[in-house]
């Protein structure tokens, strides 16, 4: 019973704050509304006994949103974030598409006869996940790791405008790099 109540609270919270993301005036509030939406959604994940994944979602989302808010303000400065603003195009069309999608999905959800399983839950879902990732799903894990590594390299290349020739001189012969701010290792 209490699970039912918590689920509906989390679900309502998640959708309401999700809508709020596109309704509030300030970038900071929008980001933290999105964070709230993620946290509520993580609550529903916790309800189905996925402790590790639920907590992981909480952890990742807080980090991501805090980083997001930095970029947000960098590109969309807005004093104290309290100035009303709208930056939308084709609002009516988008709304129609979104509502249409929801209607189709909802009908599908209630028309399809979903399979049910009486299979027992594993003792420790986290253990099952870990064994899957390190066993049959190893290939996926490797691809994920490679993708993450590629992302790190690609993002740094895209985002920075100073290469090593800027830092170490045209012949790469400078002893210490010419950076606007010096680092801590003393190079």
């Amino acid at each position, binding site marked *: 019973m209490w699970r039912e109540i918590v689920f509906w609270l989390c679900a309502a919270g998640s959708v309401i704050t999700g809508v709020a993301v596109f309704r509030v005036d300030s970038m900071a509030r929008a980001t933290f509304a999105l964070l709230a939406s993620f946290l509520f959604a993580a609550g529903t994940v916790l309800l189905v006994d996925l402790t590790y994944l639920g907590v992981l979602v909480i952890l990742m989302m807080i980090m991501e949103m805090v980083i997001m808010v930095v970029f947000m303000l*960098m590109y969309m*400065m*807005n*004093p*104290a*974030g*309290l*100035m*009303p*603003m*709208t*930056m939308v195009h084709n609002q009516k069309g988008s709304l129609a598409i979104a509502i249409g999608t929801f209607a189709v999905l909802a009908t599908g959800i209630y028309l399809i006869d979903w399979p049910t399983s009486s299979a027992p839950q594993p003792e420790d879902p986290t253990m099952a996940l870990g064994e899957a990732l390190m066993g049959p799903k190893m290939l996926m894990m490797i691809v994920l790791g490679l993708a993450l590594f590629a992302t790190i390299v690609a993002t740094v290349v895209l985002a920075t*405008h100073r290469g090593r020739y800027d830092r170490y001189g045209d012949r790469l012969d400078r002893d210490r790099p010419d950076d*606007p*701010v*010096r680092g*801590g290792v*003393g190079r």
Partner: protein
Amino acid sequence: MDGMQLAGGVPMAGRADDRDGLTLDQLHVPLGPLLPLWPPGLVVRTKLQGDVIQQAAVEVLGIGDARGDAFWLRPGRPLKARWLDASAALLAIAGWADAAAVARRLRDQVLTGTPQAEIAGPIRRWGRQVRRSRTLPWLLTGVGQVPDKPSTPRALAGDALTRLYRWVDSLADPKTSVAPPDVADGTPWAVDVLPSVLEGCELATARLIVASLDLDTDMLTVCEAHHG
């Protein structure tokens, strides 16, 4: 972006080129005239992008209406107390509250006329503690490096760390203890050079730099009075 009302009357920030090649918003932030551990009357008007100072203009309020009387020039104010005072401010801004507290206590003892024999030991102990710290050089090296020109006052050459070490060393020197206050002060020079040193620094480093230059705004008034 319709509806450009201003939030709380604060105008939208303007934009300009910056260090990282991103044209970001500029923010005008005045530092001073009244901040803790800040030379009274000094105002630094900064243009910030992010927390990097793109441009700084220095102004000293209240020159001209003073009495030509500087705190550190009055009799019974040995140079030693002034160095302790400057070190205390720099250490406090660098976030070493305990060493700063000791320096402040020693300064008060010097000013109230504690005999030389009694205070030399504690000052030496404090100086050793400051010089022994290995994080301090790591944090202060390269902060507030002033241009190395013939006109640079000897007392202000180098960066924040060399200046702090110079104070600490001269405090350990027995000759300093009897030295009279110095009228030939570096403050006018420091005020001139400050904008160029501050440009490209981070907002927080600005306070370290100002503290390390040991500006005495009273002294400016005195200089003004001397030169008419």
